[in-house]
Every structure is written in C-alpha cells, then in structure tokens.
C-alpha cells in the first residue's frame, strides 16, 4: 500500500497540503476574462485538484515498478513520460467532464448565457492545465522515489536494529550461562567430603552436577525455552546447593502444571534463584525458604516471583546488581513494554517479580520481532 494511505491521519494531512492549490487554482480560473463565479471556480478546483492529488499518489506505483538502480535511465524517462502523459490525459478528461456537468445545471451562480460555457473555457485553457498537471505529476514521480528511498532505509535500519538486539541478547545469555566458579568449587568440596562419609550421596552429587552442566549448556544455546525446562534447571541447581547448605536451604515452589509450557527466554529464573541463595540464604545463620511462584495473568500472560529472606545488615554486593540488570536487559530486548521486572526489598525479604503480558511465541520458533513499536504509529 502507498505509505500515505497506511494511516488515516497521515492521509488527511496529505490532502490538506493540497488545499492551498485548490484556492490558487480557483483564483486562476477567476482571473480569466470571462470570470467564473467564485463558488463555481472553488467547486471545480476542489474536484480537479483532489483528482490530481490521487493521480499524484499513483505515480508512486510506477516508481515502485521501475527501481532507480536496476533500470536504465532511458527506460525510466520513457515510462514516466508515458505515465505522466496518461495521467494528465485522464485528468483533462475528468476536468472537461466536470465543466460539462456544471454547464448542464450543476452551476447555480449565473446563467450559462451570461458567463459563457465552462466547458469551452476549460477546453481553451488546456495548455495551461497541461503545464500544471505535468509539473505536479513529475513532482509526484520525484516524491515517489523519495518515499521508496526512505522506506528502504527504514527497513535496513529496523533490520540492523533487530540483528543487534538478537546479538546482544545472545551475548547476555552466554554471560548468564557461564557457571559461577565458586559454585563449582564449593560443590566439589562437598563431594570431596561426601566420598568418605556417604559415597552414595557423593555419586548422586556428581550426577546432579553433570546434569546441571549439561542443561546449562543446552539452554544457553537456545533462543527460547519453556518454564518447565527452566524450572528443571533451577531445581537441579537447588538440589546441589541443598547438599551444601543442608537444612538451611528450603524451597517452596508453587507452579501450576499448565503453566510449564509457557515459552520464555532461557536463563531468566536461574540467575534470580542463584542470587536468592548467594545473597539471601548464604548470609543467614538459620537459613530460610526460597519461594518460587508462577501464576497466569489474564490474557495469557505469566507472572513469576522469586522470594527469599536476607540479612539486612549484610552490605549489598555489587554482583547481585549485575545479575538483575542482565535479567532486566534481556526481558526488555525480548518483550519491550510487554514485560515488567520489579525488585522489592521489604525489611528482611527480597522479592524479584517478572510479568510477561503477551503469550510467548511458539516453542522452537524464532524470536518474535523484539522492536515493540510499529513504524506507522
């Protein structure tokens, strides 16, 4: 569709721009020796100029058919000459028709006898009209090419932006997929202790750790995952940490089964749960409970919250901020304004909440266009 017709407001502005020409055209008609009645002149000009405005737009389609770079200049000149001439001819025909209709009684100002035939006048003035229409329609061709250039520029810009966004998201995700080395060392230390104390549990820990690494590798390579898969990773991680922290680490998960299929960018929950352990539970003598909750939002959205107690006297560590920024950044890239990320600290409780309004794209499908704004708005 023509870019000007994509949106009503834009089209109205376009037509309004032609209004001064209606007046100029009407005044031009009036200044002729056998003066037109002002009302008739305006009416005729309005019809004729409006028609010209549409013909002007049609030039764009001719331009589309003749891309500047791929067509020889001769062909461009030739085709546009034919186009402009044809459009002009159409315009004359209608102008003559309007004049003829006005002569047949649509004009009420003065009698036909008193002012002479409008049809004859228009016929007489055809050379003037020809100059007018050829100039305007040639301008139409120029504007057409300008619009095409702007459009293709916007397209490449949008495409580049989208590519950048995807690349950045992948980068952030790979950052997240890097396993914290201290987690690894502490887990291996636990295994080292268990090998003599409880060989069976030591083996179990080795398996849990391998599973965690494998899942983490897989998920880091994906564009999207499901809530269920992400939770499997999270619980895998928590089981390992439970071996370390013993009774100090408790988990209370409340995730309805029907939400497990919700499609998400991978590694959104994992860093939040890791934070909850590292900056929450690990700093508490008695430990505490990590709450993981998922709820559906009306309209098919999803709400996720991770809650944990923390010691308010513990100085805030910068690392947590980086993890949170990472999650926020990735939600932003993927969903724009359709996702919200909130962090609250109340007394000794920390809560991170993710809300995603739209139902995520189908599993395995490429990421949806992350640029939230349509260009026409």
């Amino acid at each position, binding site marked *: 569709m023509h870019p000007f017709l994509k949106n009503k407001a834009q089209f109205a502005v376009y037509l309004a721009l032609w209004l001064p020409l209606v007046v100029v055209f009407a005044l031009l008609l009036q200044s002729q020796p056998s003066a037109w009645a002002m009302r008739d002149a305006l009416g005729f000009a309005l019809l004729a100029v409006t028609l010209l405005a549409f013909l002007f737009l049609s030039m764009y389609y001719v331009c589309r058919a003749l891309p500047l770079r791929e067509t020889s200049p001769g062909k461009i000149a030739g085709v546009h000459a034919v186009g402009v001439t044809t459009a002009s001819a159409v315009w004359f025909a209608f102008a003559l028709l309007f004049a003829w209709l006005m002569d047949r009684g649509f004009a009420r100002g003065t009698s036909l006898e008193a002012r002479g035939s409008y049809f004859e006048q228009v016929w007489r003035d055809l050379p003037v009209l020809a100059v007018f229409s050829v100039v305007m329609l040639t301008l139409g061709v120029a504007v057409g090419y300008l619009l095409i250039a702007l459009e293709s520029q916007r397209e490449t810009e949008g495409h580049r932006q989208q590519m950048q966004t995807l690349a950045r998201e992948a980068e952030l995700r790979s950052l997240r997929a890097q396993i914290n080395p*201290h987690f690894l060392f*502490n887990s291996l230390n*636990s295994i080292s*202790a268990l090998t003599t*104390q409880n060989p069976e549990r030591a083996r179990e820990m080795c398996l849990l750790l391998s599973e965690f690494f494998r899942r983490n590798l897989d998920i880091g390579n994906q564009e999207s995952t499901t809530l269920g898969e992400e939770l499997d990773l999270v619980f895998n991680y928590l089981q390992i940490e439970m071996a370390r*922290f013993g009774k100090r680490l408790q988990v209370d998960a409340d995730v309805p089964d029907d939400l497990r299929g919700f499609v998400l960018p991978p590694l959104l929950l994992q860093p939040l749960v890791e934070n909850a352990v590292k900056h929450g539970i*690990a700093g508490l*003598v008695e430990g505490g409970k990590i709450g993981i909750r998922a709820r559906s939002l009306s309209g098919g959205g999803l709400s996720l919250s991770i809650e944990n107690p923390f010691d308010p*006297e513990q100085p805030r560590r910068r690392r947590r901020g980086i993890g949170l920024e990472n999650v926020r950044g990735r939600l932003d890239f993927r969903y724009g304004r359709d996702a919200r990320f909130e962090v609250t600290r109340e007394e000794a409780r920390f809560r991170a909440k993710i809300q995603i309004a739209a139902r995520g794209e189908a599993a395995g499908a490429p990421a949806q266009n992350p640029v939230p704004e349509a260009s026409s708005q």
Partner: protein
Amino acid sequence: MSISETIRTLLVDDEDLARAVVKEHLAPHPEIEVIGECGNGFEAVKMVNELRPDLVFLDIQMPKLDGFEVLELLEHQPAVVFVTAYDEFALRAFEVHAVDYLLKPFRKERFDEALLRVSRRVREGRKGNAEPGLSYRELAGSARPAGSYLERIVIRDGAKLHVVPVEKVDYIAAADDYVSVHVGEKEFLKQQTLSSMEAMLDPRRFVRIHRGSVVNVARILRIEPYSKDSKIVLLSGGVQLPASRAGLAALEAVLGGL
C-alpha cells in the same frame, strides 16, 4: 607449656560438609585436638575469645561476619588458616599474617603442608620467639583490597558484638587510643586511631573535618560561620562539630564548592 602439648583447634565454616572434610583430614594428626566448631562469624568471635584456641580454620564468606571481620574482633591471637573457595582474598589473608590459605577443594598433601606450617608457628609462639608484630585487630582493618572501602564497622562491646553499616554512622570522634562511633543516639567505642579509621573509609563519603572528627557527608545539614577562622558543621541529628580550615577545604573538595 611444652612442645608436645596438643594444638587446640576451632573449625569455623557455615557448611557442615566443609567442616567435615577438614575434620577428616585432621584425624590422622593426634597432636591436633578439635575443641569446637561453629557456622557463623558471631559465634566464631565468641568461641575464640572464650576457648582461646591455638589454631582456627576460618572460612571467609559466612553469615553475620566475614572471616576478616572475625579477626578484627579477637582478643586473643590464634594461628589462622583460611579455607575458602575464593582465591581473591589470598593477598589480604597473608597481609593479616594468616599461616596459610587453603582453596576448596584441597588435597591431603596440601592440607598436611598447612598443618606443618601451623605447628612451626605454634611452636615458635610457645617458645616466645614469635615476632611481636601487630595484632589481628590492626592488621585486619588495614588489609583492604585497593579501591574498596569499609562497608560496615564491627565493634566489640564486652560480650556483645555490634555490626554498624557505615551509612548509618553520623560521625566518628577521636578519644585517646579509641574512636567513638556515633550512630544516632548511640555511641560505640572501638580501639583504633582516627587516622587508621579514616583510611579505611570511602573518602567521598567520609571527610575529616577536624583533627578530632570524621563526618559522614550525607549527614551534613549545613555549615555555619563560627569565628573568623573556623566554621561549625551541623548534622541532621542536631550535633554541631567544629571544622578546621583544612577540614573545610576537604569538605569543599567532596561537595564540589560551598
């Protein structure tokens, strides 16, 4: 005390399994006697001060107080072996004269090597050959990684321990060999010089406005003239502190012009 005497040892780590692995490695060494274990910084300080062990295996990242803060609060100076998964504290550990620094997980050989160092240190201590040196209290405070500042001040008050986040401090005043840390209505005494305290605090947040006081810039309400040469700094709690000319210049540098 004779050399053959046992080395009384305390284990401090917030993970049961981490303590278990240390205990297991200690088992073949009859000269080591484990007299207690605990899982957080507060308890560690209490137990060291009560039990006066010869050796402490100390984790760094723990609830309440970290390993370095624990050292700062000790009345008694045991030999310390840090046991941690973090290698970034090693330099600091040796700055506070730790005997050794074990990275989790560790080998038996490496652990035995640490024990060898421990018995050497303990033996020298008992012979009275140990260099008198600085106390943990002084060392722990000054051993900070470059560019990082104190986030909280730990203070021992008899049997009680206080942890004061620095943003809650109004000002710190010199009082002989002590500093008094003013937090709202409360005042805590800590054995330290004002200069060493000043050096540990972020200079963008704490300014020495006078020979006798370091003030939390965020608490300053206004500055009023006092005499020809001096001014008074008014804090939000109603406290008035004199400021010297040099102190005002330092404040000006932080606040960006008065």
